[in-house]
């Protein structure tokens, strides 16, 4: 097992390199980070020239990638534009945990910029994932046990609708109904945007209240997908011989369902969740935009707009690492759930 994990980790490293190269090349051609620098007019020509040099953006892409990866503190860089390097660079490179400084939030390390948003995204996503897992288990198991009943058909249809729902449609619709119309009708209404009311502060109650609609929007799609998945897995397991044996033995039904069937049905579900979890780390970009949630997805959008390579690369690499790690974790959980699986 240890050997297997080691194997996977070692495999993950070249993969991450691969990803970083693809992304870096894309990022380098995405726009000019010093075109306006967030201002309302174009940056002055002389400043553009100087900034490109000072921020190292004048270097060829290979050199920039190398600096990004391995830092430039071992070489002298030219700050004053005379073509001769005089001071050592300050960047340590990603390999040494330095993702560089944000080009937008000047003076702030990219990791710090991202780090501030991670908790917000996690709060939202963990809540959504809990709703998804619990909800889909309930719905999926129920409709598997009542296969072909009216409720089953109803749930199946509903889950298809949920699965086909564009996230912005459900987000806009729910915001319109629960925040706008409810308010108009004098009903208790939900807040439209933000994570909390700054004047009240970041209290648990505030955050929960602001979280309801985004969580709802994120959950609907995955809930539909997962519950269908659980339903079909459960159906398959319920038709296995050992379940029939258990029934024949006269085991109580809940015991059959929850101990025998569900445990075995949970295997493929673990895989799916394992694949989905890291993606949630990126946050639902669209949801965060609509509800102005200060998470990573919105951060990504804001910084992509200004070509902030260090932050955008940071976010994407972080997610990639998470994907790799979660794939390994999934395998471990898988092995733990299913004693037949041993990795050699």
């Amino acid at each position, binding site marked *: 097992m240890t050997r297997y994990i080691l194997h996977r980790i070692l495999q993950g490293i070249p*993969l991450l390199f*691969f990803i970083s190269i*693809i992304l870096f090349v894309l990022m380098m051609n995405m726009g000019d980070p010093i075109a306006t620098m967030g201002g309302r007019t174009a940056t002055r020509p002389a400043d553009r020239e100087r900034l490109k040099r000072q921020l190292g953006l004048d270097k060829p892409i290979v050199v920039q990638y190398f600096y990004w990866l391995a830092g430039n503190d071992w070489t002298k860089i030219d700050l004053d534009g005379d073509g001769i390097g005089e001071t050592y660079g300050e960047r340590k490179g990603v390999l040494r945990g330095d993702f560089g400084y944000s080009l937008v939030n000047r003076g702030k390390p990219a990791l710090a910029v991202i780090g501030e948003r991670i908790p917000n995204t996690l709060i939202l996503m963990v809540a959504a994932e809990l709703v998804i897992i619990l909800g889909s288990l309930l719905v999926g198991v129920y409709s598997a046990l009542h296969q072909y009943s009216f409720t089953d058909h109803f749930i199946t249809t509903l889950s298809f609708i949920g699965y086909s729902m564009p996230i912005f449609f459900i987000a806009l619709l729910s915001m319109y109904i629960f925040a706008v119309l409810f308010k108009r009708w004098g009903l208790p209404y939900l807040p439209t945007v933000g994570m909390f009311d700054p004047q009240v502060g970041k209290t648990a109650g505030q955050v929960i209240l602001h979280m309801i609609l985004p969580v709802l929007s994120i959950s609907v799609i995955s809930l539909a997908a997962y519950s269908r998945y659980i339903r079909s897995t459960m159906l398959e397991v319920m038709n296995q011989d050992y379940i029939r044996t258990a029934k024949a033995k006269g085991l109580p039904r809940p015991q059959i369902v929850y101990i025998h069937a569900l445990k075995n049905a949970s295997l493929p579900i673990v895989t799916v969740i394992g694949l989905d979890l890291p993606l949630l780390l990126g946050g639902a970009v669209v949801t965060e935009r609509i509800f102005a949630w200060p998470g990573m997805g919105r951060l990504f959008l804001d910084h992509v707009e200004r070509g902030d390579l260090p932050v955008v690369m940071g976010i994407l690499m972080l*997610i990639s690492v998470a994907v790799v790690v979660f794939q390994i974790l999934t395998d471990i959980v898988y092995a733990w759930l299913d004693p037949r699986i041993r990795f050699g």
Partner: protein
Amino acid sequence: MGILNIMIAESTPNLFVDDLETPPLPLTTLAWKRFKRHRMAMLGGVFLILLVLYSFGGSLFVEEKYANFTNPPIRLNTPSWQHPFGTDTVGRDVLARTIYGGQISMIIGILAVIIETSLGILIGALAGYYGGTIDSLLMRFTEAMLNIPEIFLLIVMAKFFGNKIPNLTLLGRTFSGSVVVIIVIIGLTSWMYLARIVRAEFLSIKENDFILAAKATGTSNTEIIIRHILPNSIAPIIVSATLGIANAILSEAYISFLGLGVQPPTATWGNMLDGANNYIESAPWLWFFPGLLILLTVLSINFLGDGLRDAIDPHSRAI
């Protein structure tokens, strides 16, 4: 030449072993029978036809010029007899725009899937058929692409390709270059799952003796890939492509919604929503109709794909 003549002369008809009595049903008939039983899939199919009629047939009644006709004095009018879906921020008719937007959205969906499927098949086939280093390289690349969430990749690519492609004139209509960009980037970001499916299919099918037989016959690798293996892995490809259309239409909507997609005045359901973001409350018709149409289209395709899967690809089981 000679040998065959001898064959004819000396072949004896009474050597025939046995004829078949009743011909079994062809595969396509079987599939159709299974498909027909899938009521939701039938319904999805019918709905999809209606939606296609709406988007493409609608252009018989409404001219594209009308869909792009701005009339600022009547901006943001509520739905009325004259403008059943209301008007947008420059007074264009929303109904007409959903018709032409639907066309573009569907064309994007279909063309993007063609790119996606071609890429997926190409990469999956090369990796699965040749194996070895080619396989490792291609699969590492696939995994790398797969590891980045699609929406992020789409955004980055949309910025990368943004407006690098000029406008196109096709069939007397001018398509914004951004339409082509969207098609390309959706195609480029969605082939990975299909590549994996195709690779797995190829890996298993190429082990069959009939591939060896073809090699022994002298059939070239390309012919083996195209004529032998591909037809045998067509079922999952068709299902994946069908569902891919739904995904592509959604992807288009997402990037257009984020302002990186097809640029106005060319309407798509997605970019109609983009402008609506600021009018959630004051002009709900701006987002409701295109949103609903996207939902209905995606839903119909998903139902259809589900039915197809059951009909032609009974092995696979997934959502």
